[in-house]
């Protein structure tokens, strides 16, 4: 272990020692103040904070600072056991006892977007219903999701209020629930728009998913792009080789 490494560890330990008794959600002093207090460089404080965030002991909010996390430290697993996308975040979060809220940013019909038409296997100019949502768990943003479904399978989709109704319940009711997924996962840095909705600093990391869902008749029924906060999520599963 290098001296630098042990230094940030010591600082991380001292932060927890000194502020561990703070309440959940309490704001920590700023980096400059902590750097003065422990007589170290700001970069060491930043690094110690990153490490604490990684362990779920603190969290950062854009433009506000770093906060202590006491509750829901448990990591959410976006795995195939509770497939991210199958029953959606709602079911996943329900199984962790977290209260879910959806905020619809915008919804409506798009036509003539060839990128989306190809993702959904549609002909040119077939209408697509777009649904952009921010998903919250216990009032904290978890993910921003841009979902697109072919209008032809969901003719009354525009009349639904997806801040109240689960999209998957609705898709199931219309006989086109996705049962097979093709998912792509990357780690990206947040753009200003997503950072704003997730209340995180711009360029903070987030899991980026692209997901195509197929129903029992192998129709493509969903294409979703989503940014999921990293700090409390992991992605794990067991495979037979």
């Amino acid at each position, binding site marked *: 272990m290098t001296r630098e490494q042990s230094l940030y560890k010591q600082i991380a330990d001292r932060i927890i020692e000194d502020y561990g008794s703070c309440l959940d959600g309490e704001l920590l002093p700023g980096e400059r103040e902590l750097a003065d207090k422990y007589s170290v460089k700001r970069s060491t404080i930043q690094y110690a904070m990153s490490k604490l965030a990684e362990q779920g002991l603190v969290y950062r909010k854009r433009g506000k600072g770093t906060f202590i996390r006491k509750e829901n430290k448990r990591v959410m697993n976006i795995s195939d056991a509770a497939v991210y996308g199958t029953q959606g975040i709602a079911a996943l979060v329900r199984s962790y006892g977290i209260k879910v809220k959806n905020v619809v940013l915008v919804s409506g019909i798009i036509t003539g977007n060839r990128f989306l038409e190809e993702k959904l296997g549609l002909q040119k100019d077939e209408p697509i219903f777009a649904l952009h949502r921010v998903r919250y768990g216990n009032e904290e943003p978890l993910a921003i999701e841009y979902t697109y479904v072919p209008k032809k399978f969901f003719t009354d989709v525009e009349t639904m209020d997806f801040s109240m109704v689960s999209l998957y319940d609705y898709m199931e009711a219309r006989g086109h629930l996705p049962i097979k997924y093709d998912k792509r996962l990357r780690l990206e840095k947040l753009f200003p728009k997503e950072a704003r909705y997730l209340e995180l600093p711009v360029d903070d990391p987030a899991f980026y998913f692209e997901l195509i869902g197929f129903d029992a008749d192998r129709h493509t029924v969903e294409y979703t792009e989503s940014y999921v906060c990293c700090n409390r999520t992991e*992605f794990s*599963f*067991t*495979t037979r080789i």
Partner: protein
Amino acid sequence: MRKRILFKDEEITREIERRIRDERLSEGDRLPSERQLAEEFGVQRDTVRSALEILMKKGVLIRKPRKGYFVAPERIELNLKDFSSIKKEIESIGYRSKSILLNYELISMSKRLAEITKMPVGTLCFQILRVRYDIERPISLERSYLIPEHVPELSREDLEKQTLVSLLKHDYGITLVRAFQRITQVYGGDMEAELLRISRNEPLIRYEGLLYDRKDRLIEYFDNVILPCSLEIHIVDYA
């Protein structure tokens, strides 16, 4: 007034991505200039530039000064269901992947390692440390842990000669049948910064796995950190 669903620059990023895919453009292929794209899409150059910047940040494009925009190197696709090694993936897209063995030693398990492997603290195990390169670029730092009992004659030469999977199979008759894998995000430390040529505190993908054989014995625990721009994880599954 109706709210706009996709902004013009967001539409353009998707259209450019679509073309790269449909026209089978590959690494190093050049895109039309900002001016040409602006004319074609009927928008201001600022809008095109904003779209191109999004695509650079997403690792789809790279910019070369005074030369323009080019398709970025392809990401390595890690297929989690198939459990193929990263090496195989890299080879399958035509790169020469090279893994450099940095260290190989017998250590006693730390508390953290013991918790993960469910073995007693202090259990002896081999720690293998490697850096993987995609051509000249380091892309991942790979740590593997093996129990000496399963691989009693493990040597540096063995490790340099072949992959762990084939070593286990051919020299020790061990076939891996089950894997528990986990993806999380971590921040690079000093070691990652030095070996992967990044700055400290860069977000990285952590890819860990516990591998079991037919007798359900834990054979290997691996703990890799990978540069985000090099990797895309692909999963096909059923609900």
